[in-house]
């Protein structure tokens, strides 16, 4: 394994993304969850910068700046603001226990390695760990959205998923598909806005942000 | 033939037989009854031990064909009688003799103090039990093995129900008998499949022929063997008899059953899985054993934590240790089927070493528990306590056993687990992610199990032996255990420490049998290196010179002692325990056994299916003030894998039973009669089947 220091750093930053995803599974405070998302996005920007530098893709610097500004700063701020405005209680309510979630996080990594591990040596990707980690982050985001009660947490989960998709795109395309990144970034913005509207609407109509109460409307 | 083998065998067998007779006909004065029998059995164990040691030094296999009238002496016939002891058998014979000897010694005192009826027959049955154990490991043919195996089960049943005055003991005994019977059937199935498949009725004759058998065939044999031997060993989910039978038996019997008899399951599986089927091992066998073993380790130790009955706690801890041994066997099989015999040897060495270790410290703990529970008259830990003052030696010996079983250096339990950790670590040479992750996870399970075992044994020792006596009965204990009991326990603890400090004393003799079983050159564990360090296979892993570690430990303790003992200006005083300024602390303020277990039960509430009920204090009642309001906290616990798993099975049996209820008379003896009849019919069938082809 003759990794240059650049690739090594890339791997490390990718691992940071993985750890933020895992820790977001065990945290019980919404604000901390948002903070983790911000950290994850900052790491994502770091990945973009590194890929840009290592593979000489200057356009990616732009992407990195977008992510750093939008995902790491603006979106978290908006989210925190929403939480304060809507007076959502700060606790994460979950359907499964924290310990199960943590183990599920490990399961996501194993599943990802099982699925994309064999592809890794074939694809020309910047760093071996990037692809499985991106799939893991997608899975964890999905898990987070699926097993948490509050709509707010579900939004954070979806945002993490989007981060994962972006990372996969970066890994597979060497950052050449700028369109993809921009698309993802735009999606994020839309997601945030939609999420905000969604939350407001729910607050207005039901006076709660517990998605579980929507069940009461069924049948 | 004037080999010492024959002499020692004859001496050992005849001493055990004489011990049985002497015990059964003993009409001496009651408190002394059974002494002659125990003495003779000690002689038998001594002869057996010398023989096993001689066999291990000599190497190779020693065989004796017995020509009895009506039985064909040659190996071709199903009823051939052949005594055969190879390296593997010698290892287990050594275990039986050492543990048996110590337990017999302790039984001298135990019988006098704590057994109140039929001492003679108990002693005699102990002799017969040891004889059957010796026969199990020295049988060379299917026929003799099955006779010895069923004999072992029957004799141990009689030992379990020795105090058959109580309904619980009879129930536990019957439960044990039924499960052992099913296990015996599985063992028989496995061995018959082997015999039919290979066309040989001797174990030695089977091994060369197994390569002709197909994968389905060997897989079926292995599964049946796992079922049968796993039940005897107490593997989850076949362990359910074990926590019932062990507490019901007298403590010296529990010591032998847990220390030696359940190891016969390990012996049987190594015999079938390695010695005979080893070359044909498939990958899934190893993973099956690894998963079963890991499950047993966790289920066993988690249950042990929750117990209030001291002997049940020890019984569940046996389930845990058997789990660890089976994990090691599984690891060995995985390496074997991956074509890595040296690593398989390391794992198998860990399994055998740990079997030996567990035999030593578990029998020690059962004897210590027997002394404590016998003195107080109850097995409930909540009613013991404060025994360290009247029984200082017993409590010190029990503490030593607790340290050993918690896998702490410098005791033998640590060395066994260290070897297994090294074998698991060696998975990084296989280059397969699945194996690496499984083995690493197994290492995590093993670490968790040993951490939990330490938790269980701090609880067992602390609650039973330390602090205030919890009841008047416990406070009334005045004397330590009898000298012979302390002697037996001290012998066992001494061996635990010796094998912990100088493990190569046992690993050396074990390495040749292990090398034979895995078909690889022996790892040189005999010399132990210039400083007693254990070598590692290839360049993997770490090394261990536990003797040096023990020296360091002694040095550290010396430093602490000097710091502690340096002349002090102020002399040590004693005073009452601090109690927040209330009345003098009483036993009711101590942590209870269930209180000690509570954090773990809460963490694993899903496993225990614990349901806490809290009733708040009803406001007006009681004295005024904050402290005297009485609330109520209850925790309901179910023991998993006992009820529902066997419920459908038992319902089906019940339905079947009601159909053939005409055969039922309700007495245990009738059922025993049926079993004997079945055995006889089976033997006759074998005789007929073998008659055609001598």
């Amino acid at each position, binding site marked *: 394994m003759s990794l240059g220091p650049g690739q090594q750093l890339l791997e490390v930053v990718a691992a940071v993304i993985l750890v933020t995803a895992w820790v977001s599974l065990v945290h019980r405070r919404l604000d901390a969850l948002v903070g983790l998302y911000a950290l994850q996005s900052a790491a994502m920007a770091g990945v973009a910068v590194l890929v840009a530098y290592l593979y000489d893709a200057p356009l990616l610097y732009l992407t990195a700046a977008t992510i750093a500004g939008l995902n790491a700063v603006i979106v978290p701020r908006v989210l925190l603001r929403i939480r304060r405005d809507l007076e959502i209680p700060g606790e994460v309510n979950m359907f499964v226990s924290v310990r199960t979630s943590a183990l599920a996080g490990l399961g996501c990594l194993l599943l990802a390695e099982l699925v994309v591990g064999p592809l890794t040596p074939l694809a020309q990707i910047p760093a071996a760990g990037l692809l499985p980690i991106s799939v893991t982050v997608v899975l964890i985001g999905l898990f987070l959205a699926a097993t948490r009660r509050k709509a707010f947490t579900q939004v954070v989960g979806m945002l993490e998923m989007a981060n994962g998709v972006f990372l996969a795109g970066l890994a597979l395309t060497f950052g050449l598909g700028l369109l993809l990144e921009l698309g993802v970034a735009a999606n994020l913005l839309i997601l945030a806005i939609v999420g905000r509207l969604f939350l407001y609407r729910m607050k207005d109509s039901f006076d709660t942000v517990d998605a579980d109460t929507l069940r009461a409307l069924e049948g | 033939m004037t080999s010492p083998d024959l002499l020692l065998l004859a001496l050992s067998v005849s001493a055990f037989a004489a011990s049985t007779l002497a015990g059964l006909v003993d009409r001496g004065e009651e408190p002394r009854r059974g002494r002659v029998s125990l003495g003779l059995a000690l002689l038998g164990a001594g002869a057996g031990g010398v023989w096993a040691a001689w066999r291990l030094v000599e190497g190779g296999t020693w065989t004796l064909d017995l020509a009895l009238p009506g039985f064909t002496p040659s190996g071709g016939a199903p009823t051939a009688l052949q005594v055969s002891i190879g390296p593997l058998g010698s290892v287990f014979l050594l275990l039986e003799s050492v543990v048996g000897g110590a337990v017999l010694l302790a039984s001298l005192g135990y019988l006098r103090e704590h057994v109140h009826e039929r001492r003679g027959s108990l002693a005699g049955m102990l002799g017969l039990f040891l004889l059957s154990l010796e026969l199990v490991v020295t049988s060379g043919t299917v026929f003799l093995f099955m006779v010895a195996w069923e004999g072992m089960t029957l004799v141990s049943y009689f030992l379990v129900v020795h105090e058959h005055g109580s309904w619980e003991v009879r129930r536990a005994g019957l439960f044990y008998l039924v499960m052992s019977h099913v296990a015996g059937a599985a063992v028989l199935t496995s061995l018959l499949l082997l015999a039919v498949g290979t066309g040989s009725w001797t174990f030695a004759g089977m091994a060369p022929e197994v390569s002709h058998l197909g994968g389905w065939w060997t897989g079926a044999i292995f599964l049946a063997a796992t079922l049968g031997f796993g039940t005897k060993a107490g593997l989850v989910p076949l362990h359910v008899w074990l926590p019932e039978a062990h507490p019901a038996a007298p403590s010296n019997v529990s010591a032998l059953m847990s220390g030696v008899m359940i190891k016969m399951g390990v012996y049987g599986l190594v015999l079938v899985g390695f010695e005979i089927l080893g070359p044909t091992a498939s990958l899934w066998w190893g993973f099956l054993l690894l998963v079963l073993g890991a499950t047993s380790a966790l289920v066993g130790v988690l249950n042990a934590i929750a117990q209030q009955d001291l002997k049940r706690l020890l019984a569940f801890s046996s389930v845990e240790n058997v789990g660890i041994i089976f994990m090691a066997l599984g690891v060995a099989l995985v390496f074997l089927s991956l074509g890595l015999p040296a690593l398989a040897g390391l794992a198998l060495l860990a399994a055998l070493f740990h079997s030996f270790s567990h035999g030593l410290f578990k029998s020690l703990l059962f004897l210590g528990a027997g002394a404590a529970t016998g003195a107080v008259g109850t097995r409930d830990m909540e009613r013991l306590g404060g025994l360290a003052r009247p029984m200082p030696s017993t409590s010190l010996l029990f503490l030593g056993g607790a340290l050993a079983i918690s896998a702490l250096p410098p005791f033998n339990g640590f060395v066994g687990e260290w070897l297994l950790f090294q074998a698991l670590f060696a998975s990084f040479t296989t280059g397969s992610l699945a194996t690496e992750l499984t083995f*690493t996870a197994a290492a*995590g399970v093993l670490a968790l199990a040993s951490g939990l075992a330490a938790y269980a044994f701090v609880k067992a020792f602390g609650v039973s032996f330390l602090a205030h006596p919890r009841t008047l009965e416990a406070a009334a204990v005045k004397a330590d255990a009898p000298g012979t009991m302390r002697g037996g326990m001290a012998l066992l603890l001494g061996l635990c420490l010796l094998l912990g400090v100088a493990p190569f004393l046992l690993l050396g003799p074990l390495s040749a049998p292990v090398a034979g079983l895995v078909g690889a050159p022996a790892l040189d564990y005999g010399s132990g290196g210039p400083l007693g360090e254990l070598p590692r296979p290839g360049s993997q892993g770490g090394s261990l010179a536990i003797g040096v570690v023990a020296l360091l430990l002694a040095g550290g303790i010396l430093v602490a002692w000097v710091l502690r003992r340096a002349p002090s200006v102020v002399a040590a005083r004693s005073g009452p325990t601090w109690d927040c300024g209330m009345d003098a602390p009483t036993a009711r303020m101590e942590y209870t056994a269930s209180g000690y277990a509570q954090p773990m039960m809460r963490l694993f509430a899903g496993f225990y299916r614990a349901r806490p009920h809290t009733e708040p204090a009803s406001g007006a009642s009681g004295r005024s003030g904050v402290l005297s309001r009485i609330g109520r906290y209850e925790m309901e616990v179910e023991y998993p894998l006992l009820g529902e798993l066997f419920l459908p099975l038992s319902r089906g049996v019940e339905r079947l039973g009601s159909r053939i209820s005409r055969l039922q008379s309700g007495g245990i003896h009738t059922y025993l009669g049926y079993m004997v009849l079945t055995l006889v019919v089976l033997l006759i069938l074998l005789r007929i089947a073998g008659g055609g082809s001598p």
Partner: protein
Amino acid sequence: MSGWGEAQTAALLLSEVLLALGLGPLLIGLVRRVKSRSQRRTGPGLLQPYRDLAKQLGKGTVYSETSSGLTRYSTWIGFGALLAAVPFVPWFFLPSPIGFSGDLIVLVGLLALSRFMTAVTALDAGSTFGGMGSTRDMWLGALFEPTFLLVIFAWGAPSGSTQASAIVLHGASLGLTHLSPALLLASAAFAVLLLAETGRLPVDNPATHLELTMVHEAMVLELGGRDLALIDWGKSVRFLLLLELFVAVLLPWGDALSLGLASLALALGLLVAKLFGASLLLGNLETRVAKWRLFRVGDLAVLSWVLALGSISLTYLVGVG
């Protein structure tokens, strides 16, 4: 070990033990100092732990009337186990003088022995608090023992050894590529373990004396005088051992490989610098977090297992890539 004079081995061993005994209280004092400074308190001086030890060593002992003989010897064994563990951690000279005689698994065993003895002693006096501390401490120990083993496996995988010296030497030989994601993940798991094993926030509050929240302090409530001194000193040695292991594996550079005076001095200086840096970070962390409810620590333990197992699976990935 070959080619070494016995005198050199003994001198190195002795210096390691003395270093551990001498440096442990200083680090505890440093962490306290950082905490008090960041909380805008003056706080006790750096050397306060030494003064406390001296005071306790000079005091007489009061034993509970309930306790048996166990309390009179168990503290030595616990302290002795910690001293015996010292040579299995890499200090300033590699390979460790008697490292051949054990590996990190031995370290785990010796730390567990010390914990076991303290937990048993806590039950001896029959105090409710002793039982409370004992069960909680064993509970934590059982939960984090898997973490320790998994981290050892993850750390040891690249060098193929469970021995601290070999792991550090291999790591140092890799240069910067040593800092792989797998290593960082495993080290993160170890950091969680470090907080739990040494009774730091958020697992246990080393400064509290409120009975119902204590873990370690509740266990040793019935001890006094020299016994308490041994326990406290032992606790600081345990802290130092784990912290040193952490920094040595994470930053494996700068150990002396030969017995030259200059290289030894340099290595010693680097060792102290690394430890001070880590203590500063830890003190900062401790001012930022609050103590967690005991049962949430179970979640933390599972997270540390996940980190360590994840590290193993990444080892494999990077090894292929």
